[in-house]
């Protein structure tokens, strides 16, 4: 119960901090929109839906690396010490992951809306399944990137290490996501996608479990 209270409080803190500055959400949103627009202008002659699908996930990958890596890399040593004293490591990790999932959900929803608006030939026939893929994607991006950004921030030099460490871990997830989203673009019946959905959920559970086990060691300096 103590944990739930701490998590609730910390999420409230994160949302409040973000709400005051609105820096991350606006920054990443502008990043996504301008990347989509750049892609639209550069690949305008490309007619293949599957390429657009892959492009969408690559844009989301880079946007979420930028958005989620803020969670630990941006905090000062003092801020980290403050939450170290106040809350248990598990509460810190869970609250960051949940907050990042919420952030990514808002971002990817807006990005998907903008994407379908700009590329009207892209609109997947099975929007619900595509949205399931988007939800699962935001979840897995935030579970993986939250832990990796914690590792990168403790290692001392942020940006490049973050990309190197997270890409090999996220590639399998990305492959599953692209496959699932492709099923939605092709309009296949849902039975064909249960494998991927189950696999993504399993990977998420696995990542959260290992993160929870390892984070206390990382958090204590």
């Amino acid at each position, binding site marked *: 119960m103590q944990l739930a209270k701490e998590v609730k409080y910390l999420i409230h803190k994160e949302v409040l901090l973000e709400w005051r500055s609105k820096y991350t959400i606006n920054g990443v949103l502008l990043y996504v929109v301008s990347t989509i627009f750049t892609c639209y202008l550069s690949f305008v002659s490309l007619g293949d839906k599957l390429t657009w699908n892959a492009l969408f996930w690559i844009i989301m990958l880079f946007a979420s690396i930028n958005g989620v890596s803020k969670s630990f890399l941006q905090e000062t040593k003092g801020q980290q010490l403050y939450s170290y004293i106040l809350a248990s490591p598990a509460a810190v990790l869970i609250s960051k992951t949940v907050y990042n999932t919420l952030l990514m959900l808002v971002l990817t929803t807006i990005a998907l809306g903008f994407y379908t608006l700009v590329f009207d030939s892209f609109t997947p026939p099975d929007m619900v399944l595509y949205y399931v893929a988007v939800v699962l994607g935001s979840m897995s991006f935030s579970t993986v990137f939250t832990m990796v950004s914690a590792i990168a921030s403790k290692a001392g030099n942020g940006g490049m290490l973050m990309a190197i460490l997270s*890409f*090999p871990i996220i590639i399998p997830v990305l492959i599953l996501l692209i496959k699932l989203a492709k099923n939605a673009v092709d309009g296949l019946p849902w039975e064909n996608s249960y494998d991927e959905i189950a696999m993504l959920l399993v990977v998420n559970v696995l990542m959260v479990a290992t993160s929870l086990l390892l984070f206390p060691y990382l958090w204590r300096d």
Partner: protein
Amino acid sequence: MHKTWWKILGSGLVIYTAIAGLLLGVPHLPILNETIRNLYFHVPMWFAMIVLFSISVFYSVKSLSSKSEIDDIKAVESVNAGIIFGILGLITGAIWAKYTWGQFWSFDPKQNFAAISILLYFAYLILRNAIDEEQKRAKISAIYNIFAFPMMVVLLFVLPRLKDSLHPGNGGNPGFNSYDLDSLMRMVFYPACLGWILIGYWVYTIRFRIRSIENKQQHN
């Protein structure tokens, strides 16, 4: 003698598989033809790699609780030895692929995922280089190693089963058992796996000893 028997056993088995693998009869199958002999050299590399990476995770877990420098060196040196076997596995696989599938890199899921999982361990080594302070390096790299291990298992054992692969046992291709059913191939294949695992372990112990001597010299 009681300490070196497994080294002699390992080298004996590898020499035996090199000779017997090239000379003994093999079943003649279409497309594969004589390249089937590569089974004795390509597959054991992956077994050795998996064993070495598992050793590394074991010592990473141990070093998190014991905080001893020896466990940390053991973890990194088994990764170093494992990467050698991973690269050898990729090379032998690529050569085999050239003669049976037509290209060195055939965009086969298992090939791609094996390459990605080796990237994972290169990232581990780069992470180590990025941190100067020794204890901090031991702790953070151990955490990354443990965090990455389940992903490697997913990459190598789970994902390829969801996709069609040119490898045997996937996507309607016959599995191993259907063609090495003749016991002659088993008689070479199993000793080859054991032999290469032992050789891999030997490489790792030598690397570990060199590294600990170097460390000792640095401290003095």
